[in-house]
């Protein structure tokens, strides 16, 4: 019984090796799977598409939050660099204006499975 299983495994390995030689795409796939073992087997599932449908534009807490952020941007000459805000903490108690924009909570890396 165990001999049969081992034989099958060798066959699969052989197939994979052949695939790498034949298809650069499959080689890339193997690379991706090696880096992210928990990746969903099939990309393009409904989870990904639904995220794509919603995700665009920055999420704000409410319209007040949005209007304040817009007013802040108008006052600045250059586009604000997000790194500036992270340096503020530690110096004084931060106020809501000092904190970085609240990131949309539905964002999860597509690589996190």
């Amino acid at each position, binding site marked *: 019984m165990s001999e049969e299983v081992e034989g099958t495994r060798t066959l699969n390995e052989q197939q994979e090796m052949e695939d790498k030689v*034949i*298809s*650069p*795409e*499959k*080689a*890339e*796939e193997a*690379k*991706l*799977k090696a*880096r992210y073992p928990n*990746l969903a*087997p*099939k*990309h*393009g*599932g*409904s989870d990904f*598409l*639904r995220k*794509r*449908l*919603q995700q*665009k*534009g*920055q*999420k*704000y*807490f*409410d*319209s007040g939050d*949005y*209007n304040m952020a*817009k007013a802040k941007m108008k006052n600045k000459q250059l*586009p604000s660099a997000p790194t500036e805000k992270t340096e503020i903490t530690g110096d004084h108690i931060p106020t809501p204006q000092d904190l970085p924009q609240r990131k*949309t909570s539905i964002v999860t890396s597509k*690589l996190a499975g």
Partner: protein
Amino acid sequence: SDFCLFPADIISTVEFNYSGELLATGDKGGRVVIFQHEQESKNRPHLRGEYNVYSTFQSHEPEFDYLKSLEIEEKINKIRWLPQQNAAHFLLSTNDKTIKLWKISERDKRAEGYNLKDEDGRLRDPFRITSLRVPVLMPMDLMVEASPRRIFANAHTYHINSISVNSDHETYLSADDLRINLWHLEITDRSFNIVDIKPANMEELTEVITAAECHPHQCNVFVYSSSKGTIRLCDMRAAALCDRHSKFFEEPEDPSSRSFFSEIISSISDVKFSHSGRYMMTRDYLSVKVWDLNMENRPVETYQVHEYLRSKLCSLYENDCIFDKFECYSYWFFAIMTGSYNNFFRMFDRNTRRDITLEASRESSKPRATLKPRKVSTGGKRKKDEISVDSLDFNKKILHTAWHPKDNVIAVAATNNLYIFQDKIN
């Protein structure tokens, strides 16, 4: 890597009008800039005229979706011109949610000599008017005005990716990820929904609409492409709701070569009809395909844009470049043009099957100089003047290009720069 200092200037769409006299660009900041082809100068008849700025206006502003607490970007996704019917020019511009019809008109005369008004506009005392005069039209400096004539709003829950003017010149369609609507250019408070692929249960969602276009002659026919690499042709005479297609175009896939990336790279980012309406071309991540409308089971031609990226798909997935949406454009279907990375763009001659890679960048081109063909080296040995795949700058993408409808003039948008290349006249 190179970052754009002024993200609002990133060009997001490029389109010539029907005569090619005007070229419109839309950007991430919601602005539209229209360039006009200057008449050839008599002194230098061997050079075509240049394109200079004709009009600039703010088409869309950022908005706030109160229901979802999300910002609606002002980025112009598409511009489509209407055929010219009088002295004014009309175009449709759209962001994710709202389509606007803009009228661009010239004013080069001003009436002077009003009876009831002074030259500075102050009302004259009627009792002091002793004689009547006829106002005279006097020339003034050319003023180009853009005014919004129609606003087509609140018809799209998802993000608009395409607009297409119908050949009847009365209607147009707008497509978002899941739905396509048909509008009448005169009516803003209603639109017909003609395609709806939203499943009853969103967990069953498997594909989204990526692009749509009206047939150039048959006003009842349109096509839409999907994220799974399929194109559906629909006939509005067959049914009011075109959920059932009339034709279904898909290239069969070799199941043994299927990989994790197969579906992503098959997603069609652009679909365009040929002038005859007999063919259409589609752009997916690695290739441009030409389809005969009479043959649904496979394309008639396939052109490789940057096949060398097939062995880079892993890193292109990690940095999201694999989701970049490239457009394609053709010149009377003799030649096809599409963009790539590193500010490269590709042109294919359908008759000779020759192809060329060119670069749109300040360093590589001086005004009036001929563009030098570029080559990406894929093998181990890199020849002089070739660039290796690993040296390509994936932040420099050419997503938007357009070809003049009549002349050999092309417009190429490289991030926030617009390049216009022309063929030399002999």
